[in-house]
């Protein structure tokens, strides 16, 4: 689920090691940035800076092509 933060500090500016994890192969990490439905959470909710939000969206879309992440989570699919 989402990283819901009120202070809105970019997690990647706090911890530079996380930047390496923005990769479609690290799809388990990228799951933090999608909703249960599979939608990408907007940056103003997660507090991710625009630079890294651009990377995240492109990597999530790559992971979707490879069926590592859902385009749209179907509750009937098991």
């Amino acid at each position, binding site marked *: 689920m989402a990283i819901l933060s009120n202070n809105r500090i970019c997690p990647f500016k706090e911890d530079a090691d996380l930047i390496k994890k923005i990769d*479609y*192969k690290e799809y388990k990490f990228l799951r933090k940035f999608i909703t249960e439905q599979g939608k990408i959470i907007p940056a103003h909710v997660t507090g991710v800076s625009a630079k890294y939000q651009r990377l995240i969206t492109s990597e999530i879309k*790559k992971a*979707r*092509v*490879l*069926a*590592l*992440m*859902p*385009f749209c*989570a*179907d509750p009937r*699919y098991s």
Partner: protein
Amino acid sequence: MNHYETVYIVHPAIQEGRLNDIISKFHNKLSKLKGEVLYIENWGKKKLAYAIDKQKYGTYIMCQYSLDGQNVKEISQELELNPNILRYLISKVESSDIKEGSNTLEIESKNDDSKAQESKNDDSKAQESKNDDSKAQESKNDDSKESSVKDDNTEEPSKEKNDEENSSLEDVVDENNNESISDDEVEKDA
């Protein structure tokens, strides 16, 4: 020469032997195009986030290689035309992103049973059906054997009861076990 990374999903029904054929075919194509395999990794069988060609599982293979940019089209064509590859993704990576490790795939040796199944799968369908029939017969034979063994077990405790009173409690436990087993068998039959 640029560095590229390809992840492709192989059909889940394909076992080790044919999986190796597919991987080696891909590598041959790469070597024909003067590419060089730098790293390869088998992610194993994973559940897909959504069904592709009605398949819910797939075997993921990740491969990093160096190749001329002009030849990427031919590689993608090779992957596209293989019906056993459900999906693939070619992406350009920096040379610093290439993982260090072996460029030959170490296939994990699974149980011997799986290999035996593979060899059967390679045979024709008619033979498979025959095998299935024989298997069914075998299973029937096994059932009969088990039932006979159980009869022996049920007889033995009764003898022991006659011999010693102290062992009667243990015998009761044994009988209970036998009953439970018989219940399981009923469930299997059902």
